[in-house]
Each structure stands twice: as C-alpha cells, then as structure tokens.
C-alpha cells in the first residue's frame, strides 16, 4: 500500500511539474499569439535551453502509467485514441516548429510558417490535454468495445464538460507563461505587455474555473458537494485565494522570483484540489464502476521495482534539474 502511495505521489509530482514547466512552454506559444512579434525574442530565448527537459515530465508520467497501472494506460489509449493522437500531433509540431525557427540560419518565408505552426500547436495541445482530463472525470469512457464508433471513440471526450476543462487548462498554461515571462522581459515595454496579458488570463481563468463547476452540475457530477466534503480541497482553494493579493503586489514591485513562486503554488493548489476529489479513482467508467489506484495497479513485484527506479531517478534528477534552472533561470534574474 505504502509503495502504491509513493508511486502515486511521484505521478502527481510529475503531472504538477509538467503543468508548471512543460505547460508554461506551451503557454508561451499562446502568449505569443497575443503579443505577436514583440514577444518572440524573449520567448525563444526563455524556452530554448529548458523545453526538452521540461517535456520529459510527460514521458515520466506515461512510463509510470504503463508500468504501474497498465490497465489505466491501455484504457486511455484505446478509448481516447483520437484526442491523444491530436496531442501527439501538437507535440510534434510544437517541438519541431520551435526548434526549426530558432535554429534556421536563413530567415525567409519558412520562418513565418514555423511561427504559425508553433503558436497553433501550443494552443491545440493544452486544450486536448484538458479534454482528456475532463473525459477521465466525466465517466463516459466505456469498459469494453461494445456499441457504435461514435459511442465508443467519440462521445467520451466530445462533450461540453470536456471542452470546458480543455479551455480551463489552456488558460492556466497561458497565465503561467505570462507570469514566468515577466522575469524574462528585458525592457519596460515588454514587461508591461506580459503583465497585461497575465491579468487578462487571470480573469478568464477564474471565469472558466467557475464554469467547470457549473457545467459539472449540469452533468450531475456533484463537484460542489464532493468539494465541500474534502478538507484538502477546501484548504487548497483558501490558500489559492489568499495568495492573489500578494501575487498582484509581486507583479507591481517586479519581484519576479516571488511572482513565479506564488503562481506555481496557486497552480499546485488547483491540481491538489482536483487530486483530492478524484482520489482514489483514476478513470470513471460509463458502467458506473471506476478504475481505481487499487484495482488497476500492477503486481507487487513490479510496483516495488518501480519504487526503486523512481527513488534512484529522483536522487539523480532533482539535483541536475536544480542546476539547470540555476544556470539558466535564477541567474538571469539577478542580471536584470
């Protein structure tokens, strides 16, 4: 049991870091949609050294899923084949377009196409990631292949609720990126641009968060009551709300390290709150049952070896990651 909890904890951390770091890289593309030319240089320089490392959190999450919870992984890949495939397209286009744009030695028409592709895929991928999160909560995923193509492979994710969570996640990524970019801005004008963008995203984010709850009521998911019954979830909301004034102050005083930290804590609160009301379910199924942490985990021997691998991995990865960010992110802050 303890082993499983540890693995779930690492899975949660991987998801959190993917949202905080990888998500912000996607968000940067979304921000670029709004700021246009002015943002490109800052954004390119900010992402280039770290996006590949940030991206691995996703791979870690996938590996934990198919090693520790193979049934969860195959259920997702079977019934959510289509949105997952769209995410893959987004990942391909985002990564390659960004790198090609950054490294091309000649600036011609291709540059424009790379830029378009980078921005569109930065928008598409988070949206469909959110759609998948919505589908996991909604409980329309079948437990066996039985029914029409639409019922099995489309309806579980093509619905209002999943789209609402998709929009929420997109806005979250965009907002995070705008906040992080404050620290990368080299001049006053771009700082103001990013500050304005972050405010816009924040307002939209709150509206969209509320609509997730409202739509959930329409689908009778009882989010409100499940929320009120979880002290962890309530705590998360309180902390996230309490942080807001400090965040504004941080932006005003241009304390970039503080704003980054506070925005990350808020995001962590949102995710933890969601984990708290989802736990211990991994996927809600259409027949009323669910794949839970307990009933979908791999045999004990596999789990214990996974624990060793994760512990060793964490001991190696975290110091290295800290060093990477020290070289490229924290030190930059001091210079500016």
């Amino acid at each position, binding site marked *: 049991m303890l082993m499983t909890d540890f693995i779930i904890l690492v899975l949660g951390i991987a998801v959190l870091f993917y949202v905080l770091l990888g998500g912000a890289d996607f968000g940067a593309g979304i921000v670029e949609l709004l700021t246009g030319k002015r943002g490109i240089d800052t954004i390119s320089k900010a992402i*280039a*050294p*770290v996006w*590949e*490392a940030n*991206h*691995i959190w996703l*791979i*870690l999450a*996938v*590996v*934990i899923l*198919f*090693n*520790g919870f*193979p*049934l969860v*992984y*195959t259920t*997702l*890949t*079977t019934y959510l*084949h289509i949105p*997952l*495939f769209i995410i*893959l*397209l987004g*990942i*391909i286009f985002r*990564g*390659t377009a960004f*790198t*090609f744009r*950054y*490294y*091309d*030695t*000649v600036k011609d028409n291709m540059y424009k196409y790379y830029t378009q592709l980078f921005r569109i895929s930065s928008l598409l991928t988070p949206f469909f990631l959110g759609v998948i999160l919505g589908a996991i909560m909604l409980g329309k995923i079948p437990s066996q*292949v039985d029914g029409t*193509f639409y019922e099995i*492979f489309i309806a579980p994710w093509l619905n209002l609720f999943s789209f609402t969570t998709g929009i929420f996640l997109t806005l979250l990524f965009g907002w995070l990126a705008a906040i992080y970019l404050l620290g990368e801005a080299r001049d006053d004008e771009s700082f103001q641009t990013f500050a304005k963008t972050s405010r816009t995203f924040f307002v939209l984010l709150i509206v969209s968060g509320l609509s997730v709850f409202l739509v959930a009521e329409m689908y009778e998911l009882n989010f409100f009551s499940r929320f009120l019954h979880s002290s962890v979830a309530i705590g998360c909301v309180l902390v996230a709300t309490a942080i807001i004034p400090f965040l504004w102050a941080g932006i005003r005083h241009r304390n970039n390290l503080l704003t980054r930290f506070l925005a990350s804590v808020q995001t962590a609160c949102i995710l933890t709150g969601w984990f708290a009301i989802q736990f211990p379910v991994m996927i809600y199924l259409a027949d009323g049952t669910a794949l839970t942490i307990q009933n979908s985990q*791999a*045999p004990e*021997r*596999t789990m214990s*070896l*996974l624990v060793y*691998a*994760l512990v*060793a*991995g964490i001991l*190696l*990865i975290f110091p*290295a*990651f800290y*060093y*990477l960010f020290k*070289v*490229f992110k924290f*030190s930059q802050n001091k210079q500016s």
Partner: protein
Amino acid sequence: MDDFLAARLQMTVSFVFHIVFACIGMTMPWLMFVAELKWIKTGRKVYQDLSKAWARGVAIFFAVGAVSGTVLSFELGLLWPKFMEHAGAIIGMPFSWEGTAFFLEAIALGIFLYGRNRVNKRIHLISGLVVGIAGVVSGIFVIAANAWMNSPSGFDWVNGQAINIDPIKAMFNNAWFQQALHMTIAAFASTSFAVAGVHAFMLLRHKGNEFHRGAIRIALAFGAVAAILQPISGDISAKNVAKLQPAKLAAMESLFKTSKPAALVIGGIPDEEKEEVKYGIHIPHLLSFLAHGDLNAEVEGLDKTSKENWPPVVIVHFAFQIMVFMGMLMMGAGILFLIFNFKWKENLDKRWWLKLLVWLTPVGFIAVEAGWIVTEVGRQPWIIYGIMKTKDAVTPMPGVQYPFYLITLIYLVLTFLVILLMRRQIFAVHMNSQNINAHD
C-alpha cells in the same frame, strides 16, 4: 486498407523515423566531446568551431528525436493496447530507468548547448560526456524491452494472463545482451560514417580545409572501430537467433529444409510457394558454422515451423542480405582508414578516398533499417514470441489508416525539413565561420 495492416505500417514508419535520430543522439555527443577535448588539449580553434557547428546540428536532431520518441511511447498503447496491457507490468522497468536517463540527457544537453558562456570549461566538457553516456544507456534500456519481445522471460503465461512476474529476469532476457551490443555499435558505425561522408563532400569542394579534415578524422576513428567490431557482434547475434528463434534464422537464410550440414546462401530469390531459392550462391557447410560454430551441425529450417507461423521469408531474407552487404562495405572502409592512418597517410586527402566516403554516407543507416526489419518482421506473426500474436494485440478502433496516412505525411515533411535545415547549417558554416553560434 485493413486496420491491422495500417497499424503495423504506422508502427514501422514511426520506428524507421525515430531510429535515425536515436542513433545520432547516441553518437554525436561523443564526437562533440572529442572535438571539445581536442580543443582544450591543443588550443586549435578549428576544434572549437567543429564542436560548435556540430552542436547546432545536434540541437535540431535532438528535438526531432524527442518528439518522435514521445510519439512512440504513446503509440505502443494507441496501436497495441492488448500487448501493453500485459507487457507494461513486465517490461515497464527498463522504460522507467530509461526515463531517468532521458532526463539527465536532456538536462546535460541544455547545459552543453546553451551554457558555453555560462558555466566553466570543465563543467561544460563534463556535461557533454553526460549526454553521451545517458544517450547510450537509454538506448540499451529500450533495447531490453525489444529483446524481451524476441525472447520473453520473467513470467508464466497461464490462461492468457501473465503471473509470477519478475521484471528483472524479463529485462535481462536471453536476447538482451546481443541486441544491446549490436545496436550500440550500429549507432556509432552509422552516424560516424554519415558525418564523415558529409564532411568529405565539403572537403572535395574546399580543398585542404582543416575544419573538415579534423571532422573526418574524429568521425572515422569511431566509425572504423565500430565497423570492424560490427560483423563480430552480428555473428554473436546470429548464433543466438539460431537458438532462440530458429524460424527467424531460417527466414534470414531462406533455409526451407532442415539440413545437416547446411550451406550458406548468398543473394538469390526465395520462393515461398515452391520452398526453394533461385539464383543464389551456395557455400557448403558455412551456415552450419555460422549458426552453431560447427561445420557439420544441423540447422533447423522453416519446415519445422507450421506454415501459418512463418515470417514473410522474402522480406527478411533481403533485409538480412542488405545489412550484411552494407556491413562488409563499412568494414572494408574502416580497415582502409586504419591502414592509411598508420601508413600512407597521404591517401586520406586523395580525391578517390573522399569520394568513397561520400558514397558511404547513407550505408550505415540503410544497414540499421534493414537490421530492424530482420528483427521485427522476422518475429512475425508474433508480437511476443511464442506467446501473443501481433493480430491479437491490435487496437479495436477502426479507421487506423487515417492516423497512419497523417503520421507518414508528417514524417516525410519533417525529413525534408531536417535535410533542408542541415544543408543550410552546413553551408552557413562556410559563409560565416566566426558567427556560427550567434545564440550563445
């Protein structure tokens, strides 16, 4: 197109694409490391230029390698959910170790590519080494998973369920060592020869250029050693395949009838209907020797396997012949390089030698793709050898041909773009060799 075929083709396209970037990702960090080391040791600026120029190329290859690898980690489930449902718990372990290796690789790469002016020289050099080691280690881990498909172990298969799972036994299965060795050497051989070929092409245009001469020397030092070791490692592989998957070996050699002693067939066109090989050159006793180390040993033919479980003989046979032929070419060139390097050094600048290197540019990668076709197609109809058929593992979703068309189209476009970008990089080095790392 039927869904099963589409799924197999999509897998094939994805791997054929990814493996090129994987080979480059395992090898280039080592070449850059040596260039960097030479720069520190000799103080000659060409070596630093070389390391910087290579680094710019590597960043592009890495990005494409990372995204195509991510695609694979999803495709295993998107296309073969029944396989992953069972295999996940058994061979997930090497993948989880691989995850750690990827992390270190990506972090060290960030420091190596972008940190030249931010960290000190020693840390910069070490980060290059870490990229190289992590790349090779991650390759070895994935191979463990593939080797397990060829030689499943570490579980008991009872009524269509895996029980008594032991991931450690599964990882160190009987095919693991031979495949990991052969693949790692293949990565070095293929990438090094390709790099040498590109620089030889440029050297033909810019006679006596020290930059390209240095590049060729570093690349071929790796390439020659790898190319000479590869047939030895291939022989180890063949002996193991003879033991573990006799039907695959029989298909590789087009041996329809169990024979004692068995002759080696070189070339020829196998005919699955008539169960014979047309036009091949037969060398008596040699196959017995190659497969079992004994000139008179019996070699199991396809007749020992019921026909519905035969792999596609023609494809496997041709792929194997191509791999071995390419291997022989590279070994020959490798031996020549070593001879010239110790004696008759002047030959290394001769036009015929540079032209030969240009011709050999794609040879290693052709061998890699052919080798994988031998391994994967030769395992058919099994996805887990002797345990699960590939057709039973395929996704229940209809319409797989559409993602297949899309992925194929995208990878074709990406291939085109990567080639275009590389061309531009290579020519930019010449137009402006001081300014090649504008982003530092």
